[in-house]
């Protein structure tokens, strides 16, 4: 199949959504240049007594503790542990003596491999050119202040390309230092459990004893990485290092920031995005206990008080009037009508062509069986467990900001731009994130809290109420997608035509290059709305997984074929894809009959480098669907921490099922109607299906992501199962809108 033609219009959001990770090539970049940046970096990360920075990502202290410096944030995905595993394995470190430090928000820890992975993922470069290429990407990536955790990229980008290389480089430097001191050939030395051993002379020494000498060694140009048979830590289900502190409550999240003299701010933005606050009546608020300041910030109102509750209570009494905007008066039904009208107008030819091959018009016209369908999905909010928050202190030409963000370096840059203070005098302090899902890649809270702190001059912690969080999110877009599919007389798919609203990211999300369909054409139209879009776990795959896999199922049904068998035909010739599909079917006992009123559905979506097939079983005998079991087969190339990978699949099922069953943000009079968990419900524990995960390590050289790829197949597996059980084809989410009585 020819390479898909794609129109690319990169935006900052597209970039984040594509999921560039941080930290990639710095070590590689350094490795091919003279000198080692440890002099510059040590004051940032190795200030302790006896600590020695070996290269940008590894330090060793006098007690032989190895610290892996990871340029990613921990938001519950377990990335600290997995990245440290990768580094420690290549270093031959003793895992019990490995510690983890989040890299500071500093440009030196941003990465070129982000750019490499994002812009030219398949670019094969001769070794001799690697330094040039990496160097170019490094400077670009640094300029873009990329230190982002997202796009399921941390392990396959940073881990694979930087953390392993850093560990291997540090190991070679330690060995070289020991060889020089002991006057033995490098080849006679081996490393194990943070020790260097010379078997011939029975000499041994700790890493720590050679840390200082190692840091003086030149960086190896191409450190040798282990092959899978030599992995000691990678591929092992090592317990996450953040479990104890998150179990006993000592873990510090952004919302836990605490400073002497700190006050609290509650905020309320104009309900219609884009409106300004024209006037406020704060007569009652001024007299309320604890209130310090009342601020009309133009786009939002803030009350600063001694306590958060006092600020919230006072804010609730403030009456505000807002400017009129173009978004006023818009309702959700009218928005879907707008989508429909524009899709109608696009007809068979207009819109932006994303991919095209063959002649869909001809193939569809002459098809023996024609299938057509339209699907709709709503806006979705992120609903992170930790409400959005940020603490800022602006004084004497300095600015300090505390939060939990997916992009620490951008947060620092944003604070500098907002305050007008030179970035060298701006410090950003990141903490654990109580859920991210893409929401914490946005900079709105950083901007708002620094603006409040500029007005007060004392430190202020701004916390959004759950209502603000729900009503002022950057949403997964609502969307409509239409399909036409053609089958020949044998029920073989011969044409696939799709037109849909919006394209955000990843660019390949609406495409199906892995399915053998000779003629296909995929188009999109842009329908502007005033609501803010933002990356939401799996981004565009979240809606296109549902659209595509629902329509594949409809085609299978029209062809008189089983959904699994039909997909097998479409994947013929792709053994790695087939293995994943077959595994999911086998796990579920696909051919075994189910009781009356129960159904089984299958869906297959490769995304973020990982191939995933899911089979859902639903019980439709009650008033609403009950998903009983989800079988997940996934091939991420190689699962560095199988337990962590499986956990990501499980949480994708929980997050995806929440959206499929209940997730709906709708607009009325231009404002979001939902406000809290009573009208934007989250899956309850009794609704959580059993999740069975099987991991296939299909290609250890080319890793895939974990955080997102489990999500896209979930909704269509469930709706396909509902169809199998009831004959009721669900073409609009969420399921709570469907009457199954």
């Amino acid at each position, binding site marked *: 199949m020819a390479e898909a033609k794609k129109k690319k219009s990169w935006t900052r959001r597209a970039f984040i959504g594509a999921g560039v990770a941080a930290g990639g090539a710095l070590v590689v970049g350094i490795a091919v240049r003279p000198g080692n940046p440890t002099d510059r970096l040590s004051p940032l990360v190795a200030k302790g007594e006896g600590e020695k920075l070996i290269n940008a990502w590894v330090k060793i202290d006098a007690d032989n503790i190895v610290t892996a410096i990871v340029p990613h944030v921990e938001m519950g995905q377990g990335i600290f542990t997995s990245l440290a595993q990768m580094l420690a394995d290549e270093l031959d470190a003793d895992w019990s003596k490995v510690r983890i430090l989040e890299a500071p928000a500093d440009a030196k820890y941003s990465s070129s491999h982000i750019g490499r992975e994002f812009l*030219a993922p398949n670019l094969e470069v001769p070794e001799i050119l690697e330094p040039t290429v990496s160097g170019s990407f490094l400077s670009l990536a640094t300029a873009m202040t990329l230190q982002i955790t997202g796009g399921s990229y941390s392990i396959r980008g940073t881990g694979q390309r930087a953390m392993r290389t850093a560990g291997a480089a540090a190991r070679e430097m330690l060995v070289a230092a020991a060889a020089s001191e002991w006057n033995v050939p490098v080849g006679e030395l081996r490393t194990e459990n943070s020790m260097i051993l010379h078997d011939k002379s029975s000499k041994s020494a700790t890493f720590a004893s050679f840390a200082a000498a190692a840091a003086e060694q030149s960086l190896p140009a191409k450190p040798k990485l282990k092959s899978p048979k030599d992995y000691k830590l990678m591929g092992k289900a090592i317990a996450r290092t953040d479990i104890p502190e998150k179990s006993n409550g000592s873990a510090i999240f952004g919302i836990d920031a605490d400073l002497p003299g700190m006050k609290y701010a509650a905020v309320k933005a104009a309900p219609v995005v884009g409106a300004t606050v024209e006037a406020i009546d704060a007569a009652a608020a001024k007299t309320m206990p604890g209130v310090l*300041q009342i601020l009309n910030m133009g786009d939002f109102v803030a009350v600063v008080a001694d306590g958060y509750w006092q600020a919230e209570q006072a804010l609730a009494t403030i009456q505000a009037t807002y400017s009129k905007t173009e978004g006023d008066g818009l309702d959700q039904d009218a928005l879907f009508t707008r989508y429909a009208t524009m899709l109608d107008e696009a007809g068979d030819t207009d819109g932006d062509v994303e991919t095209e091959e063959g002649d869909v018009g001809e193939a569809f016209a002459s098809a023996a069986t024609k299938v057509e369908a339209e699907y709709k999905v709503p806006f979705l909010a992120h609903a992170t467990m930790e409400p959005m928050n940020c603490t800022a202190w602006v004084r004497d030409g300095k600015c300090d900001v505390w939060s939990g963000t997916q992009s620490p370096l951008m947060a620092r840059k944003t604070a500098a731009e907002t305050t007008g203070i030179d970035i060298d005098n701006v410090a950003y302090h990141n903490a654990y994130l109580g859920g991210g899902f893409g929401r914490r890649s946005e900079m709105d809270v950083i901007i708002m809290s620094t603006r409040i702190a500029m007005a007060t001059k004392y430190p202020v912690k701004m916390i959004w109420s759950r209502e603000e969080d729900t009503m002022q999110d950057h949403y997964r877009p609502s969307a409509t997608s239409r399909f036409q599919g053609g089958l020949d007389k044998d029920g073989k798919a011969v044409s696939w035509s799709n037109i849909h609203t919006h394209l955000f990211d990843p660019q390949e999300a609406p495409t199906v290059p892995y399915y053998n369909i000779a003629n296909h054409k995929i188009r999109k139209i842009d329908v502007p709305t005033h609501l803010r879009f933002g990356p939401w776990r799996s981004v565009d795959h979240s809606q296109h997984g549902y659209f595509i896999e629902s329509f594949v199922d409809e085609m299978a049904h029209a062809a008189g074929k089983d959904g699994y068998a039909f997909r097998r035909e479409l994947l013929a010739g792709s053994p790695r894809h087939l293995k994943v599909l077959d595994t999911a079917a086998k796990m579920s006992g696909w051919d075994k009959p189910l009781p009356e009123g129960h159904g089984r559905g299958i869906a297959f979506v490769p995304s973020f480098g990982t191939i995933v097939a899911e089979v859902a079983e639903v019980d439709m005998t009650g008033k609403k669907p009950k998903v009983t079991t989800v079988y997940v087969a996934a091939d991420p190339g190689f699962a560095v921490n199988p337990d962590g990978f499986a956990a990501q699949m499980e949480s994708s099922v929980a997050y995806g099922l929440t959206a499929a069953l209940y997730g709906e943000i709708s607009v009325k009079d231009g404002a979001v109607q939902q406000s809290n968990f009573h009208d934007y419900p989250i899956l309850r524990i009794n609704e959580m299906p059993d999740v069975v995960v099987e991991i296939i390590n299909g290609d250890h050289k080319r890793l895939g992501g974990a955080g997102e790829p489990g999500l896209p197949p979930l909704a269509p597996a469930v709706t396909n199962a509902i169809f199998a059980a009831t004959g009721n084809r669900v073409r609009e989410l969420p399921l709570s809108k469907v009457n199954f009585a």
Partner: protein
Amino acid sequence: MRAMLRASAPILVIALAACGTDPAPEPTEQIVVREPGAAAVPAVETEDSLIAIGKAAFNTCIACHGIEKGGANKVGPNLYGIIGQAAGAAQGFGYSEALTSSGITWTKEELDRYIANPAAKVPGTTMMAGAITDAGRREAIIAYIDEVSAN
């Protein structure tokens, strides 16, 4: 490969511009009520009556329940006038089936048993909070709800 790099550069420049400076407007109105540490507005003197204790104790409930007449339902239903009503009576609130089919009439005694442990009294209720173990606090809260509704 070189062509790739050249093609990439303008894209990155655009992206860089897109994450550029947002203006940081100052407040259009800044009301400084007092400086930190300055004497606070004197709090309303607290009474020692059961109803005053109940009003204070009701702060635990207020995150989910309003109690003003005609007030909106929040995460939980508005509680104005609840005493004497049948369970599941607040207009427009999505009760659990367990509660609506419980057959309970909210006498003070029934309410007391419920808020002592909602999940035990009505298995399947969606009321996640509650479980006020202190009988005195329950009595005060119920007295406060009754008082507000009577006015």
